[in-house]
């Protein structure tokens, strides 16, 4: 079966590991533990693509967070079929790290789809409509207001990206 590499990027402490662990293992912990380098998660899921259920193998790269993408983040992102960029809705300065990561994906992984997770929706007010529209239009991204804690919108986040990757028939092994 084909496997697709998906990189999960963003500032540290925004919930990248929590989102992946909620999706793959259906687990959540309030305890913050920094990710060093990259943690890989293999996951097989059934995703509806153009009305048909398709079994998809994903390799999720939980990459060490940073406010701006550095050389190491770029090296880890190499060869990805798509990217999930995570922002923390509780932070006033949420957008700058997300834009940095999204710009890096556009430059280094041209044409690869992006999904954006605006995370911690369980404890933060809804984002400004203009901000959501700007991110969606600028990066052609699907946007999900996620909560790794409650699980809200988490499957939709990964499925939306999976659909675009599989639909494009790109980056598969």
């Amino acid at each position, binding site marked *: 079966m084909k496997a697709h*590499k998906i990189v999960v990027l963003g500032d540290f402490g925004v919930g990248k590991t929590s989102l992946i662990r909620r999706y793959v*293992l259906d687990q959540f912990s309030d305890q*913050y533990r920094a990710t060093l380098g990259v943690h890989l998660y293999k996951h097989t899921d059934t995703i509806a693509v153009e009305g048909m259920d398709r079994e998809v193998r994903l*390799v999720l790269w939980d990459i060490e967070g940073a406010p701006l993408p550095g050389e190491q983040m770029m090296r880890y992102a190499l060869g990805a079929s798509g990217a999930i960029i995570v922002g923390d809705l509780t932070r006033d300065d949420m957008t700058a790290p997300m834009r940095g990561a999204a710009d890096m994906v556009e430059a280094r992984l041209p044409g690869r789809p992006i999904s954006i997770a605006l995370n911690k929706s369980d404890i933060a007010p809804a984002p400004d409509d203009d901000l959501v529209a700007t991110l969606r239009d600028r990066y052609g991204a699907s946007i999900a207001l996620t909560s790794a804690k409650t699980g809200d919108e988490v499957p939709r986040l990964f499925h939306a990206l999976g659909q675009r990757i599989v639909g494009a028939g790109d980056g598969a092994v």
Partner: protein
Amino acid sequence: MTETKTFDPRIVLDGARIVAVRLDDDLVVQEVAGDWCDVPVGEDVRESVPALIGLEDELAQDLPYLHLPFVTLGDSHETPAAISVQRDWKSGALWLLLRDVSEEAAIQERLVHQHNALSLAQRELSKARDAALAADKAKTRFLANVSHELRTPLNVVIGGASILLKPRKTALPAEDLHAFVRDIHDSGTLLLQLVDDLIDLSRAETGNLALVEEWSHTGVIVEGMVRLAKALPGAEGIEIVQSGDRVELYADPRRVKQILLNLISNAVKACKPGNRIEIATEQREDGCLVLSVCDNGPGMSKAELTIALEPFGQPKAHDAESGTGLGLPIVARLAELHQARFDIATAPGSGLKASVEFPASRLPAAAR
């Protein structure tokens, strides 16, 4: 004839925390030196080293250079490895090196964790400091505002009373006398309302506001509030109407009236003659009861609304009209005490709809 012993590097790798893997161009494992981790010969290397998935183009190059310093298989807590790939320029063979980096990773991880935790704590601290400064500013503004609000009616009371006390040769005409007494009465009533509001908010904030709950009829409450709304200063020329269901509600009727009066009073202040205010009661399909005050006035931006909902906060555009800035915070606290959800939908130029959604449990069983 003596046997010549040659050095085989693979002997060194056995027992060491490193594995060298020779791959063919299809990334199938041809040979493995070292026994630190299991990489089956004859199998696609991407099965045992999924980090190579997606890197096929990179690996197909004549001189691929790939170095991933810390890679851990996250769901099975495997030891972190450094992964590198190089091509032997003599033979053209592709070699994958996997090295146990658990010791370096343990140190690095602690450093990264401490750095991140410290940065997050600094951000929280900075946020808390900004919030404290903003709260301090808001309270200073509030005190200045309260002082102004108290002074205005007090000046009317003192000024009116001084005129009445002043010795004069001829008595004041009856209508002037009446006007002074009426002004003193109205200002006193306003002062009392202001003090009541302050006490209510203070009690609600400290959890000392107790409800006196009973069954009451929303129709009666709303009708009374509509009558009152029409008599509010500034209500002339504004159409104020009532609509919707009439149901029994288990609540503190005095506080429900206060909620409606605050919302209606805000709507009247925002509207101009020719605008319309609708006070509606709606029982939804899920059994909840929604009391709403909807106007077609100027509305508010999101930023203005955020300020208006904060205790002591006043949107700049409404400064001249908005009194102490206690109305909405009191509504929010009173709704909370009734386990009701308070919500405002508004946008500049689109009016404002303030709703209080009482849970179905506060309605008679037959009405749910």
